[in-house]
């Protein structure tokens, strides 16, 4: 009996289980974090929520980090396994482990580890909620890894919803101060609308193909697109047109009377809904002050590590899903829908850049400009050649580390309890702590696109791929829009470097060990990926199987 159970378990772990093993390990450690939290909460030592000093329980982040380490080790082993086999699929071909999954899962695990390290000493988190917070971060990482590995509409939808629900809870995690969670509520509304649009788009895709696996949907859509192309060609005069007409009459006689527009309308509608829905999930218009009639506070109402998580990890996972769906499902009709993506991307870039020019809050500037960065990544989809694939994944990789660096500096400054994330609070930073000011300036210059840093090369690769594929005007738009983007970032740098004497000038800036580790890693990536980018571009190419 025991042998039977063990052999069934072993078969599972070699087959389907291997596909989800990283997620399963993270899940175990997340449950362990919750168990540890409830065990530690039984000790009657909880300080009241209004106390400025909170009692740190170091077991929770330690268990979470151990889970990430194990999961990363499993990913490494999976990487060796798929080097021979090419890819692994499991659960009736609904989950796939390939280079794309390994790259993005590794990136998500690294991002989660960085966010955990930054939250360890984050002073405004109340003690009672720590275990749930770390477990939620791990649950979110699990669902985002599933999102990247899913190749079936059902599983994609489930994973997207699970990630979104974890994000809602994280956004609504209260801190010590009594901030109203109105931004969290608006994030929920925008993200839920995005989910509804995505569900509708999936229903159209399912109807167009009768299958829920995205490769089968891709085949059905490709056939449809080919028929539409032949119909369009057959309407032209000349020998080629009549040849196409004869082809149609012999192979598909009823299609002679069809219009290409009706054939392409539903796929394009599905594509538009899918893109808009996914973009709504991270582009988060609810952060806008214009939507909030009573915005008198300078804070966003969401904890800083969670804002980092939302504008970094979550945005990247969602964009990874969008890229996979664009490149797999809609691959063949790219010559039709690139206009939609270009319009969305250009709109997003303009919106992010223009809105950030007016902001006086550091967190808001970074969040608005994250929309612009994701717009640049989407412009790589417009280019759609090999250089563009490398450019997009390189951009996402470096963007994550640089944004984590900026928020790392912000979180270190928030530890002083005198910092409210307004830009004017940054003044005099150079005199308080030259190291912090220098780090902030490096990160901010990198995001703005200064040449020896990684941010410049990301945008340059995208510009280059756009030129190569012939989209000259969009390429020039990339260059021109980088100017106001750089201005927004340079404003931050100028505040940190110059600045008048403020009353907080004598308060020194203290780094804890976790923040130092995070900032070290981030500054290394943002400089090294620019100065010597070959290993990083090789990693980026691995994501697309090269």
């Amino acid at each position, binding site marked *: 009996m025991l042998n039977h159970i063990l052999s069934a378990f072993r078969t599972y772990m070699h087959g389907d289980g291997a596909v989800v093993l990283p997620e399963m390990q993270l899940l175990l450690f997340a449950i362990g974090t919750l168990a540890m939290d409830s065990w530690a909460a039984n000790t009657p030592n909880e300080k009241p929520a209004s106390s400025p000093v909170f009692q740190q329980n170091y077991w929770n982040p330690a268990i979470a980090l151990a889970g990430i380490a194990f999961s990363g080790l499993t990913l490494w082993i999976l990487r060796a396994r798929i080097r021979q086999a090419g890819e692994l699929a499991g659960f009736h071909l609904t989950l796939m482990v390939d280079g794309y999954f390994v790259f993005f899962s590794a990136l998500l695990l690294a991002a989660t580890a960085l966010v955990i390290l930054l939250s360890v000493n984050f002073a405004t988190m109340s003690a009672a909620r720590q275990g749930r917070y770390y477990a939620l971060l791990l649950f979110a990482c699990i669902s985002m890894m599933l999102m990247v590995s899913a190749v079936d509409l059902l599983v994609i939808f489930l994973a997207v919803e699970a990630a979104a*629900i974890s994000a809602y809870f994280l956004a*609504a995690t209260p801190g010590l101060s*009594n901030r109203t*969670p109105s931004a*969290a*509520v608006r994030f*929920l509304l925008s993200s*839920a609308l995005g989910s509804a649009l995505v*569900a509708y788009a999936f229903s159209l895709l*399912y109807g167009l193909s009768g299958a829920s696996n995205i490769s089968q949907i891709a085949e059905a859509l490709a056939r449809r697109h080919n028929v539409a192309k032949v119909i369009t060609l057959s309407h032209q005069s000349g020998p080629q047109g009549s040849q196409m007409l004869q082809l149609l009459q012999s192979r598909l006689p009823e299609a002679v009377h069809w219009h290409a527009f009706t054939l392409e309308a539903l796929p394009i509608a599905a594509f538009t809904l899918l893109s808009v829905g996914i973009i709504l999930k991270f582009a988060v218009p609810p952060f806008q002050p214009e939507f909030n009639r009573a915005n008198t506070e300078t804070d966003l109402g969401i904890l800083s590590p969670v804002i980092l998580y939302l504008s970094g990890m979550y945005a990247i996972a969602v964009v990874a899903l969008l890229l996979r769906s664009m490149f797999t499902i809609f691959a063949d009709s790219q010559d039709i829908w690139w206009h939609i993506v270009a319009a969305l991307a250009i709109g997003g870039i303009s919106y992010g850049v223009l809105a950030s020019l007016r902001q006086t809050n550091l967190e808001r500037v970074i969040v608005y400009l994250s929309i612009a960065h994701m717009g640049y990544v989407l412009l790589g989809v417009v280019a759609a050649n090999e250089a563009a694939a490398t450019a997009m994944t390189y951009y996402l990789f470096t963007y994550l580390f640089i944004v984590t660096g900026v928020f790392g500096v912000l979180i270190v400054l928030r530890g002083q309890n005198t910092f409210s994330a307004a830009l004017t609070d940054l003044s005099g930073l150079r005199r308080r702590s030259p190291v912090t000011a220098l780090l902030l300036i490096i990160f901010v210059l990198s995001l703005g696109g200064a040449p020896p840093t990684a941010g410049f090369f990301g945008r340059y690769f995208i510009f280059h791929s756009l030129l190569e594929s012939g989209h000259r005007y969009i390429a020039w738009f990339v260059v021109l829009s980088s100017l106001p983007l750089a201005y927004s970032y340079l404003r931050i740098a100028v505040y940190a470097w110059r600045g008048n004497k403020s009353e907080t000038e004598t308060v020194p800036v203290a780094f804890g060990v976790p923040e130092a580790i995070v900032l070290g890693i981030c500054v290394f990536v943002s400089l090294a990926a620019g100065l010597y980018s070959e290993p990083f571009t090789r990693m980026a190419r691995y994501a697309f199987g090269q």
Partner: protein
Amino acid sequence: MLPITHYLFLSFALFFIGLAGVVIRHNLIVNLFSMDIILNAASINFVAFSRLYGDASGQVFAMLAVVMLALELLVALAIIAAVCSRWKCATPDEEKDLSSQLDY
């Protein structure tokens, strides 16, 4: 079974009604239920296509959509409860309607 276009038009109509509700109305709960309408439009699509192709995954998806919607409403209500405990609107009494307090 009716021609598939009938079901498609019904779900399009529901989709646009839901979208209009989300865009125009600012009340929190009305917003959430308008998203409910969009998701139900998607479910109608799924079930209709499942009948057309004889494939069961459409119906599975419809069930999943309902479950997901219920979960999202649960999370939204949990967050609203946290909001209300802060804004001191504990129970909806006759003078103050809960949904009118949630204009954002």
